């Protein structure tokens, strides 16, 4: 991946996913080393995302590199009317690699065309967030020992959740059976379902969360946002029926693990947190290893 930008999960093949996961496994065992000494990584967050930014900055710091950047567009010259292209060209002079998050879709691809250094997309609107997808694959493999032939449930807002769409597309390489749990109005878009079908895989759709729990190896929970509903009463009804509680987990498979991209609001009850099946905080830690693997690989250091 040397000198290659990471923009979209669709740019990669199965072998490339697996190489990055293997490299992340190496960093999981050796998280602190000085291979980035002398390197500067810019983190340009045109919209705030504290969790993602800290994860990247932790990854760089643990490898001995330096970080420059901003955490909000209000702190950049965007407020003076500078174009994204000009900001990126300028910062290319100051850093060896740019990590960027931007609310406009396609901004990362555009940036990668004007930058003289590689770009890592840390989220471009509702389009792509490839490092999240890779850390999810890494976590699934870590918990199950394999990515192949798993039963995976995606729960919540399957219509707008970009993380879900990317994960479904990436997991379609691994003979996954998909269990899709959502309210009627937030079902997985047909374009993504077509992707499952074109890989000759199966999917099942549910509106009842409890029904799916005994059938799966992974439950991937996501937040349902109030603004997705025209009718606030409908939101209140749905909100409670998609809250995972410890009691609901009785009768699950032994190997079941619960994932969530975080931040969680109320979709996983806090009584699940101490259960051995809860894995979402470990999942967040894995983000550091995946980002270490990507940065090292792109800078040609691993």
């Amino acid at each position, binding site marked *: 991946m040397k000198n290659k930008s990471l923009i*979209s999960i*669709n740019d990669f093949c199965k072998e490339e996913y697996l190489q990055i996961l293997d490299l992340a496994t190496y960093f999981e065992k050796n998280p602190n080393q000085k291979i980035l000494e002398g390197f500067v990584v810019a983190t340009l967050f045109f919209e705030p995302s504290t969790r993602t930014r800290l994860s990247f900055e932790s990854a760089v710091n643990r490898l001995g590199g330096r970080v420059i950047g901003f955490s909000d567009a209000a702190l950049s010259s965007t407020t003076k009317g500078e*174009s*994204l*292209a000009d900001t990126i060209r300028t910062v290319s002079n100051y850093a060896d690699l740019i990590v960027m998050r931007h*609310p*406009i*879709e*396609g*901004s990362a*691809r*555009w940036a990668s065309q004007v930058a003289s250094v590689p770009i890592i997309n840390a989220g*471009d*609107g*509702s*389009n*792509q967030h490839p490092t999240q997808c890779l850390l999810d694959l890494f976590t699934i493999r870590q918990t199950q020992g394999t990515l192949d032939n798993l039963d995976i449930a995606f729960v919540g807002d399957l219509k707008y959740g970009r993380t879900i769409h990317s994960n479904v597309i990436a997991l379609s390489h691994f003979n996954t059976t998909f269990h899709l749990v959502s309210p009627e109005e937030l079902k997985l878009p047909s*374009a993504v379902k077509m992707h499952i079908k074109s890989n000759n895989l199966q999917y099942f759709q549910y509106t009842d969360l409890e029904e799916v729990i005994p059938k799966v190896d992974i439950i991937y929970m996501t937040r349902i946002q109030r603004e997705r509903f025209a009718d606030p009463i409908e939101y209140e009804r749905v909100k409670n029926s998609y809250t995972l509680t410890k009691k609901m987990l009785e009768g699950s498979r032994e190997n079941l693990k619960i994932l969530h991209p975080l931040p969680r609001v109320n979709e996983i009850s806090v009584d699940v947190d101490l259960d051995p099946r809860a894995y979402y905080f470990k999942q967040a830690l894995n983000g550091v290893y995946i980002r270490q693997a990507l940065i090292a690989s792109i800078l040609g250091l691993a």
Partner: protein
Amino acid sequence: MIFIFILTHMKPESRKKLIVSAIQNGTVIDHIPSHAVIQVMRILNLIQTDHQVLFGMNLDSKKYGNKGIIKIRDKFFDDVEINKIALVAPTATLIEIRDFEVISKKQAEIPDIVEGIVKCFNPKCITNYEQVRTRFRVIDKQNLRLLCHYCEKITKNENIEFI
């Protein structure tokens, strides 16, 4: 200079004569769907050209029943321009005329990549915010579905808007 002939009001013999009375040098774009004639002229920038342009709509066509035609004097098109036409007029034929002779006939072909002529349908796409030349991969030539290189959203046939 643009001449507009209201051909449907003419007698069949004179209509035929008029279509065949070819230009000495230039291009005839034949078999354009009638509704797309104005759009083709816009895409090829024939609204503002200095070349002499003649066009007709709702003409009889053996092949399609009904067609439009555009003749442009002293003007020839390269493949990139021809491909632009294909998006709105997939049936169009380009006939090159030199000294009243037909030199070549080309079929307009829908390209694999469409650059700089179609607007991305997604209002949140970077191409609608900054000066970025749009770029799409044609993922379905039959139903004309364009995948944006930037935001990865699909612009469907019915949503296509030309820049």
